[in-house]
């Protein structure tokens, strides 16, 4: 019978330690040396464990150094840039684009995609209410999109070479889709050249670049997802 009461008491021990003192438990505790011993032991453990809080220390600085390097490599950290005066439309588009790409897991190469596409976002979304100036828009778009296109092509080459061919059918599908997106990019670029102020065409061109960067990131990750 004493054992049953001990079991009962010990079964509610966490409440006792938390300060709850039902009458029946108090009565048993008063009379049972064994349960007293258990409570005393657990209190001693808790006191010692709490004292460890004072010993908490910061992680060595090398942890932050290594972490920061990793974050930069993954493109999660943007290098600090001087504040630019951009139109609200452009800055919100770039911000949104950054947020979208921050969520996509990327290989090392794709760290540059973010900055490329942020720049593209600024360039292609310009202020909506400015008086039209076709030559200006065309030149602006060409200045931004040509090096972007070249850079994406360069990444494409490097990514394909680096890719470990786990599943040729999937890799072939990715490359096939990449070719389709490249085709759309050239169609959209042509459209933007013909109608530089066409916001819909610019929006499609921007979406096409984003799709290409996405696909390249997926292709690049193929080799890193070996388990």
């Amino acid at each position, binding site marked *: 019978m004493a054992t049953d009461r001990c079991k009962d008491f010990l079964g509610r021990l966490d409440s006792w330690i938390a300060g709850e003192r039902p009458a029946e438990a108090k009565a048993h505790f008063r009379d049972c040396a064994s349960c007293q011993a258990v409570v005393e032991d657990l209190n001693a453990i808790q006191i010692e464990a709490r004292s460890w809080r004072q010993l908490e220390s910061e992680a060595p600085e090398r942890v932050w150094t290594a972490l920061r390097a990793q974050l930069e490599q993954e493109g999660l950290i943007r290098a600090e840039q001087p504040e630019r005066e951009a139109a609200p439309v452009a800055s919100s588009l770039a911000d949104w684009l950054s947020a979208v790409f921050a969520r996509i897991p990327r290989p090392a190469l794709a760290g540059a995609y973010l900055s490329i596409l942020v720049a593209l976002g600024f360039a292609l979304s310009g202020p909506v209410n400015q008086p039209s100036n076709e030559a200006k828009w065309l030149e602006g778009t060409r200045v931004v999109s040509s090096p972007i296109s070249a850079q994406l092509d360069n990444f494409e080459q490097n990514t394909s070479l680096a890719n470990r061919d*786990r*599943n*040729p*059918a*999937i890799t072939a*599908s*990715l490359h*096939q*889709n990449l070719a*389709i*997106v490249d085709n*759309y990019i050239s*169609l*959209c670029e042509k*459209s933007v050249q013909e*109608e530089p102020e*066409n916001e*819909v*065409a610019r929006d*499609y061109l921007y*979406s*096409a670049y984003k*799709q290409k960067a996405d*696909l390249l990131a*997926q292709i690049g990750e193929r080799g890193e997802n*070996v*388990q």
Partner: protein
Amino acid sequence: MSTGYLVLTRSKLKRQLKKQLKTAGALAVPGLLLCSAVSAGPIRHEEHFKVAAHPIITIHNPEGLITVKAWTKAEVMVISMPASNAVEVDSEQMGNRVDVTTRALSDSVSPSDMKADFQINVPEDAELQIHNDAGSVTVSNVTGDMNVETVAAGVDLEDTSGYLTVKTVGGSFQCLRCAGRIEVSSITGSFKLIDLKSTRVWAQTSSGNILFNGQFLPNGTYSLKNYSGIIEVRFSPADSFDMSATSLKGKVNNEAKLTPSTHEHHFMPRWGNALFGTFNQGRAKVELTSFDGTINILKRD
């Protein structure tokens, strides 16, 4: 248990082994193991995980058929069928989260072996995160949020709800009676959105077709976009929507009698073929955009 299949329930296996060693049934254990060794058929693993409300289930699989269904138990059941002994399926539970991953056991596994099929039962309010490159993903009656990413696998959702994000490269997408919020994107995949109960739909594909056949719910926002291919929406006389349909280089065919739009934020584009207007009271907002594809706005039969 059918011949040629080995069913393991991880959480019960240890207890089972202890009991069997003590009784005359001890021979059943080596019998089971022998069964798996000599069997020429696929190996079937079954595992059960007890979970609390709103569990998270993640599945990472290179290729295979994944079927997820809801049930009323507070439990996740994972039945996995790897294509060969060269891969294993690792199911781990961490609190209220179950992670299922297909792994190669060596670097030289062939693509045809790197496959596993799954049948998974989850509580209705489970949150799902599924990565499956090829094969198919079918989910029904799950109401938690969902994120599905595939390359070539088709995705089929039925009676689901929550925040649904689906991304494929070439895989098709079909959504039947889905509620919640739907965001789907693809490059060459086509979409079928049937009898949706969702008020937020965003669908974008490059060369795929998009079919929307269902009611536009009041206060809903529906944005369907592609580069080429066909965007087709079917409306009924009882629908009420504010429509904008633009195809930069392609056609817009319309059977809806739209009242020209008087909303301030609409503007007539200077490029492409476009129409704007209101059908009935204009309670839902519908935006259809194509680069050089065809947009069809048709009456539902």
